[in-house]
């Protein structure tokens, strides 16, 4: 609870020392309570996890390059898909958004730092330990014949796969989920406290940048549903070791209950992974269209209503579990209702571009790709929401295509756009536009080669989570795998671009872009260690 102290102390001592610079040495990163240091660590951590889980995806695509068993046996294949999903969700996408929130929220609202800096340090440093524990099971499964399997039940860990049939490593998985949950909750509490308390004088909630709004709503979703996930894994732990029967019909429980509990967390979770992306896109678009965001207030209401609706649609993940018809109808219509606020957002983005004077720097390219491809992912989601159609699509590659369109070309593309947009601000150097555009076009083309044919594979009946497939799927799988390898390799180019920009390059101006709106552009590039030591005045 250093808020008030750092907030007020910085005001009075601002003249004593010009800038509280970072401490020296490696321990700086361990003890730091600075929002920029912690944001940087979050972003690097998530990028490392992205590369690791991406490598697992490359192995999956290599296995699926040809029909038959190629590289890995079916047991290993299950571990690959499970860890790929878990690490991408909890290790890559979520920490990346928390990292962006750390870097940007204080600068956008005119605060010196986050409201709870020590908590911030803790919420980051839990993560490496959680993921070391999770990944250790995979390392053990590879190097030792006696260690048994890593988690192999899919990222959704349905009972009884994780209870009765879960390998011993499931307990490692359970505790790592507990730790990730604590980290996310603490991070979310910090964001809420910062936004509610540290806004510069004059910045009312409805004047706040839309990125802060999207994160405020996301943070509330996080504190509402991460405890439910913690409860779900705790029940799995109890069923495994303490003789309870939450999910065991023999003891009076119900395995379907697991799916209800899990998806009650799981559906808001998918919005946790896309709301900050909406915010990012709404920040970037006005800069490169040279127009203010169309329909600011309706954006805020759309985000809030999507958040509310996310709590009453969870059972659309379970249409084929033998639900009653009325329940299926309710969840179908409720799910389709989400298309309305989402449509409002897409309409507003298009309206922002309408008659604007557009320019196509790399952040804008990723933003446009986001709007186009995320909308496509949204439409395939609508198809999946139709109950009778879902009976056909369920557990096929159509589902895989759908959620990769919303998560890769949705969430990940927005993160890439955000990094290109704010990297000159963070580092003080411009990135190489030629390399960045190369990265964009490689990613954009390969990601569609990778995921678009999956729609057809799914419609033709290729099942998910299977290491082998019927011969008629061979050609499309080969195309998909090639797209996958190119997409994976082009992210190495991204790493190179980021490192190159950190090390040097053309000096960035304070504004970086032509006329960007927002308080972060009033700071120098790179910004001072403590963002706003005296609160700026917002007109």
């Amino acid at each position, binding site marked *: *609870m250093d*808020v*008030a*102290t750092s*907030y*007020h102390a910085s005001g009075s001592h601002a003249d004593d020392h010009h800038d509280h610079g970072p401490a020296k040495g490696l321990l700086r990163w361990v003890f730091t309570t600075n929002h920029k240091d912690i944001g940087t660590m979050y972003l690097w951590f998530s990028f490392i996890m992205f590369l690791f889980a991406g490598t697992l995806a490359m192995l999956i695509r290599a296995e699926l390059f040809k029909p038959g068993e190629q590289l890995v046996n079916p047991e290993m294949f299950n571990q690959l898909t499970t860890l790929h999903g878990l690490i991408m969700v909890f290790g890559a996408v979520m920490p990346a958004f928390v990292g962006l929130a750390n870097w940007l929220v204080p600068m956008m609202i005119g605060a010196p730092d986050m*409201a*709870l800096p020590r908590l911030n340090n803790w919420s980051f440093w839990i993560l490496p330990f959680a993921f070391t524990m999770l990944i250790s099971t995979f390392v053990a499964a590879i190097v030792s014949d006696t260690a048994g399997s890593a988690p192999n039940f899919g990222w959704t860990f349905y009972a009884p796969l994780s209870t*009765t049939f879960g390998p011993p490593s499931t307990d490692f998985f359970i505790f790592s989920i507990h730790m990730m949950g604590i980290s996310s*909750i603490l991070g979310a*509490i910090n964001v*809420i*406290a910062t936004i*509610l*308390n540290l806004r510069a004088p004059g910045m009312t909630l409805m004047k706040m940048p839309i990125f802060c709004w999207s994160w405020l709503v996301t943070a509330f979703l996080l*504190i*509402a*549903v*991460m*405890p*439910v996930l*913690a*409860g*779900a894994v705790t*029940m799995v732990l109890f069923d495994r070791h303490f*003789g309870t029967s*939450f999910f065991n*019909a*023999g*003891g009076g429980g*119900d395995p*379907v*209950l697991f799916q*209800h*509990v899990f998806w*009650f967390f799981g559906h808001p979770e998918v919005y946790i992974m896309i709301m900050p992306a909406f915010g990012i896109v709404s920040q970037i678009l006005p800069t490169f269209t040279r127009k203010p965001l169309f329909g600011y207030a309706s954006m805020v209401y759309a985000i809030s209503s999507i958040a509310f609706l996310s709590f009453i649609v969870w059972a659309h993940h379970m249409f084929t579990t*033998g*639900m*009653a018809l009325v*329940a299926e109808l309710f969840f179908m219509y409720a799910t389709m209702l989400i298309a309305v606020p989402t449509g409002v957002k897409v309409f507003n983005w298009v309206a922002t571009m309408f008659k604007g004077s557009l320019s196509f720097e790399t952040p804008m390219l990723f933003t446009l790709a986001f709007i186009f491809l995320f909308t496509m992912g949204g439409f395939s989601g609508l198809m999946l929401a139709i109950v009778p159609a879902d009976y056909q699509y369920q557990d096929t590659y159509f589902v895989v295509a759908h959620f990769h369109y919303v998560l890769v070309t949705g969430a990940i593309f927005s993160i890439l756009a955000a990094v290109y947009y704010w990297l000159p601000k963070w580092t003080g150097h411009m990135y190489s536009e030629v390399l960045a555009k190369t990265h964009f076009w490689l990613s954009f083309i390969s990601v569609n080669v990778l995921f678009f044919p999956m729609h057809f594979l799914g419609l033709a009946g290729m099942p998910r989570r299977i290491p082998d497939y019927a011969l008629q799927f061979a050609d499309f799988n080969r195309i998909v795998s090639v797209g996958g390898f190119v997409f994976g390799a082009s992210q190495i180019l991204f790493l190179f671009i980021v490192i190159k920009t950190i090390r040097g390059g053309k000096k960035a101006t304070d504004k970086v872009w032509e006329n960007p709106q927002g308080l972060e552009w009033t700071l120098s590039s790179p910004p001072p260690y403590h963002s706003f030591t005296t609160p700026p005045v917002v007109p």
Partner: protein
Amino acid sequence: MATTAQQKIKKQLTLMLIIVMGMFAFCFALVPLYNVICKVTGLNGKPTAMVAAVSEHEIDLSRTVTVELITTLNHSLSSSVSEFVPRNVKIKLHPGEYVKTSYWVKNLSAQKMIVQAIPSVTPGFAAQHIRKTECFCFQHQPLAALEGKEMPLVFTVDPALPKNINTVTLAYTLFDVTQS
């Protein structure tokens, strides 16, 4: 000034921690909540595990309902260990008419075991209309090594069963509950 700002944050923190704790508790509350909702609405096809009182209500002779009886062995009992079959696989009855049937169970192993049958009804809405006055599924069933026995079931279908349901499937899954 400093203290009021700090107090405000403390208040917000407490509130947020209460939300977190509350949602964690809510997750566990979902378990009884789910059971109550399913019982009231009959959404998941789980019949009550209670003896129904024999009531002398009218037998609805105007229609016939087919009850299909199926059995499954849970993975804890592989088919080499036990036998579990219904004596009748299909029973036609008038709603309100009591029917007696039985199931044959046999322990094929050399160990003593305790088994428990868990019923499930399809379509789910019919679950509340299956009335059992006697059922082996009400208790644990101990079986000595190599012991086989007939287990009785007396039931009827409530005349209140919706008219559009003509076939009801009553499925029993047999679980090994020896350990617990």
